[in-house]
């Protein structure tokens, strides 16, 4: 399996979109590209499983390494482990759903789809890169489209949101860049992730570089208190934009925190773990309480994302194998779930032209499909067994509880207490949207169209597949997490 295909297909799709002549072509080319990419991701998933089953225990599979700037020792080094495969699957699911729900974009359709695919391209490249320079390059590729997507197709105070998002993410990127350069110079000039992981970077260096990288990536994944771009950015973005932001972009940060910061600098991770635990526990509860007060559906999901993503960071900082597995599961689970949530919100907004829960009510009567999906995604968000949220959160908690001291226990209980608050706001939002008496002006509204149904079904399948049979994800992640854990244990 050639990993170049993973970035080639989105690239070709993006070019084809630019060359296409009308809106219909743009849409169908994008859709075809997304299908091809989803198929390819599934092929990759099964090829990866087969390799592992055949006894290939290499840390990274399907590696390839091409010199890019030999003078600076920058290489186009690609390879995947279980974590990357999971992230690639996630990205393809969100991509196809995003393409489908944007079917009715009228304004600058071509540019819209181009940016959407470019954003996904950045994410795909990011997840397969093993060279920090290339990885950083792909990370930046994904930032610019976000700014434009919000600034051009957004709603509300979109300029403010777009600026805030771009500046905060750029700030995070600056920290990451400094961190990567620090690694480069302290390691004898290497950007290579695998080479760096084998070096013994001195503890004092780790203590300096780790916070730069972790906070830098943390900004991308709404590390408290650097989360404020999330609510504004998500709520101003067009539907597919929010889906990509929360479903994919925030995962770039989580992946970076784990793969780059924690894996390469385990001593740094140990040093700062307790601070991260405190911050993520705050994010979890703070996000949940802040959500309770929101009246705009998008703000509700944005703040609840802050809360849910906190579980990923908490799981990483707990530094146990179970918690870390849970952290990655939570990234995947939350990615699919939140994309679905934003998709449904978009569908409702397109019909009612409001996102204020107080102005809705009784929509179940006219849109049984959309409200049923809203129910399912809400239940996933509040951690109902059978859907992905439960297994991911449960795994994080079980892993966190393995740390027997009072500090970790309290943090875990505090984080777990959020499941009650989550139930409060989710049920309130669903109840006010779907139940109760319906307004007369909403009686004529139509249920979901074919493309919306398809998008929703694809994503629902994702959360059910993880929720009912999490073992395939566990198996996929296991060797990769073990490598990180043994590095942390200092072996």
């Amino acid at each position, binding site marked *: 399996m050639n990993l170049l295909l993973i970035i080639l297909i989105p690239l070709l799709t993006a070019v084809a979109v630019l060359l296409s002549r009308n809106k219909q072509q743009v849409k169908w080319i994008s859709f075809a590209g997304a299908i091809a990419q989803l198929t390819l991701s599934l092929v990759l998933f099964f090829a990866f499983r087969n390799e592992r089953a055949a006894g290939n225990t290499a840390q990274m599979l399907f590696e390839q390494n091409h010199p890019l700037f030999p003078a600076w020792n920058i290489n186009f080094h690609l390879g995947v482990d279980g974590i990357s495969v999971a992230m690639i699957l996630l990205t393809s699911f969100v991509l196809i759903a995003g393409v489908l729900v944007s079917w009715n974009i009228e304004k600058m359709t071509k540019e819209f789809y181009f940016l959407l695919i470019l954003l996904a391209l950045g994410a795909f490249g990011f997840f397969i890169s093993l060279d920090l320079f290339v990885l950083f390059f792909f990370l930046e590729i994904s930032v610019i489209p976000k700014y434009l997507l919000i600034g051009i197709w957004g709603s509300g105070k979109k300029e403010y949101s777009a600026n*805030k998002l771009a*500046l*905060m993410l750029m700030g995070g990127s600056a920290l990451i860049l400094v961190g990567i350069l620090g690694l480069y110079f302290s390691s004898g000039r290497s950007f290579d992730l695998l080479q760096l992981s084998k070096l013994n970077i001195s503890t004092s260096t780790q203590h300096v570089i780790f916070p730069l990288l972790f906070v830098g990536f943390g900004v991308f994944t709404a590390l408290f*208190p650097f989360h*404020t771009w999330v609510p504004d950015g998500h709520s101003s973005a067009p539907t597919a934009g929010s889906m990509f932001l929360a479903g994919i972009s925030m995962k770039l940060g989580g992946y970076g925190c784990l793969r780059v910061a924690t894996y390469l600098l385990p001593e740094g991770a140990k040093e700062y773990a307790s601070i991260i635990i405190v911050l993520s526990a705050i994010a979890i509860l*703070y996000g949940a*309480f*802040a959500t*309770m*007060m*929101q009246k705009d559906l998008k703000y509700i999901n944005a703040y609840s994302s802050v809360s849910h993503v906190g579980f990923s960071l908490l799981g990483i900082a707990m530094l146990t*194998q*179970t918690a870390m*597995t*849970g952290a990655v599961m939570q990234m995947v689970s939350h990615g699919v779930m939140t994309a679905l949530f934003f998709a449904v919100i978009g569908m409702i907004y397109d019909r009612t032209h409001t996102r204020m829960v107080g102005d809705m*009510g*009784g929509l*179940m*009567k006219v849109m049984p499909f959309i409200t049923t999906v809203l129910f399912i995604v809400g*239940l996933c968000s509040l951690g*109902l*067994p*059978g859907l992905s949220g*439960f*297994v991911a959160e*449960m*795994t994080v*908690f*079980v*892993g*966190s*509880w*393995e740390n*027997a001291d009072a500090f970790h226990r309290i943090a*875990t*209980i505090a984080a*777990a*207490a959020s*499941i*009650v608050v989550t*139930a*409060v706001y989710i*049920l*309130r939002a669903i*109840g006010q949207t*779907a*139940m*109760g*008496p*319906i307004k007369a002006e909403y009686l004529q509204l139509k249920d979901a169209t074919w493309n919306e149904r398809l998008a929703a079904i694809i994503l629902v399948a994702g959360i059910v597949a993880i929720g009912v*049979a*999490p*073992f395939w994800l*566990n*198996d996929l992640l*296991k060797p990769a997490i073990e490598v990180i854990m043994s590095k942390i244990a200092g072996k």
Partner: protein
Amino acid sequence: MQNALQIAWLIPLFPLLGFLINGLGRKHLSKSAIGVIGSGVILASFVMSIWVFLQVKDGNTHVADYFNFISVGDLSIPFAFQLDQLSSLFLLIITGVGFLIHVYSASYMHEEKTEHFGRYFSYLNLFVFSMLLLVMGGNYVIMFIGWEGVGLCSYLLIGYWFKKAEYNKAANKAFIMNRIGDLAFLIAIFWIIKKVGNVNYHDVFQFAGENKFSTADITGITLLLFVGATGKSAQIPLYTWLPDAMAGPTPVSALIHAATMVTAGIYMIARSNVLYSLSHTTMNIVAIVGLATALLAATIALKQNDIKKVLAYSTVSQLGFMFLALGTGAYVAAVFHVMTHAFFKALLFLGSGSVIHAMGGEQDIRNMGGLSKKLSVTYFTFLVGCIAIAGIPPFSGFFSKDAILLSAFEKSPVLYGIALFTALLTAFYMFRLLFITFSGKFRGTHEQEHHLHESPAAMTIPLIILAVLSIIGGFVGIPEALMHGGDKLSAFLSPVIKPHEGTPVSHSTEYGLMALSTVLVIAMIIAAWFKFRNYQRSEAAGFGKVLENKWYVDELYDKIIVNPLNKFGGFLNSFIEKFVIDGVVNGVGRIVNYSSRQLRLLQSGQVGSYIFLMVLSMLVVFVLQFFLRK
């Protein structure tokens, strides 16, 4: 004939299929098809459950591991079912009573639109499915999955009439209160995993049997599990959702109160009896909370005027009795009471449904009266239910309540005294309900009076079956004092629950206690007869007002928990988020803007100032170097 246990996975599968068929096909199926599918799948499960029961009776038990649900590191949680005496008994209750409720529903809900009728039956099937998962699960995680599923279904069914906003509120309340309990349950699971390494009943109980838990661990785990149970089984402090759950259709109330949901907490503790027996502290707390709930709910029930509310509080109170039994170590008595209670409470709820049906949706008993003439089947079956719950021999409630009172007596006379007092209150408020509803003159409107009719056979036949069960259901647990070898239930459950070890009470004392409670209960019934046979509407005053308003507990919760939490959320949102954090973010932006504006002044384009600055900076560098060298 070993194979019934091998294919026991069919038991939950049938209702799941029913849920899928009715849920997805609700627009295409006719009402009768929906009713037949919905009830048929439960009947199929019931038949399977009988088969399983027959196998288990011969001493076969079976733990089936199907696949690894979660496997992370060293931890693996299998998707496993455990079939033994305890689970098979619950299977019978759930599917048997559940089936009757389904049949009844098909008639009761007949005026609903086909689409909603399908939705209703799919929820009902899902409810039974979750409950079956809960009792069949072979470890705490599978139990938890069923546990949450039950919570979800109750939410869906309580809010079934989704167009009414207040029903939605009741549904939310039920789910959220349960969630608080679930949180404790979850933490108990983490704790168990940390200590034992997995959550399989067998391993956990073996671990406990070898006394490997420290006192702190076992007390912590059992207390947390108990908090979980207080949520689902509506005990202090998490009981207030259950009476509000009356918002759902009446057969749903019957399902929640009798066959499923509220018995989950009892099942959980009975299942974990090995753990509970290790912690005296927890046992005492369980007993006290149970008794306090029983008493509190009974006092509230005295003054309620909604027919379903009275029954709801009586459920809370009866559940309190069951927890009292658990807390005094009489696990079998608790399970016994679950069973008899399932019969008579399902009967009473379905009976109240028949009354509400006849009254055209009226639920206030002050507007009823004299219904015995028009609704004779309902009346007689309701009467049977009241006698059973009041505990008059030989009706079923007598035996199970007697077992509980006896175990309370063995523990302490004070517990016994309060429990007996509560049992008397039970007799009083139940017969108050009966007499106000069925005796005296009709107090409703003429239109209602004209409309009064007995319910159709599909509703009365389940009532009759349940009435028969309420009469004879107690004979499986006749106390040793009355009949040698009469306590078949204890013998049946003995592989799972070790026989109760209390200080044995002499037979003569036991006779005395039985006679005392029976005489007093009859006295209470007579008192109720004199007070309520010709009920005249009157307003509650003084202390009665407090009881009518349920001791103002809901208001108290709003004041001390709900409102402060809302205020806290508001504070975070309007102050911390908007002012502090965004303030800093925007502030940073402003500082950057400001400093760049200042910096821009330097680029004035005048060569002179550039040279001046160059010289100045060189000077600074030299000076710095001079000092730093030193």
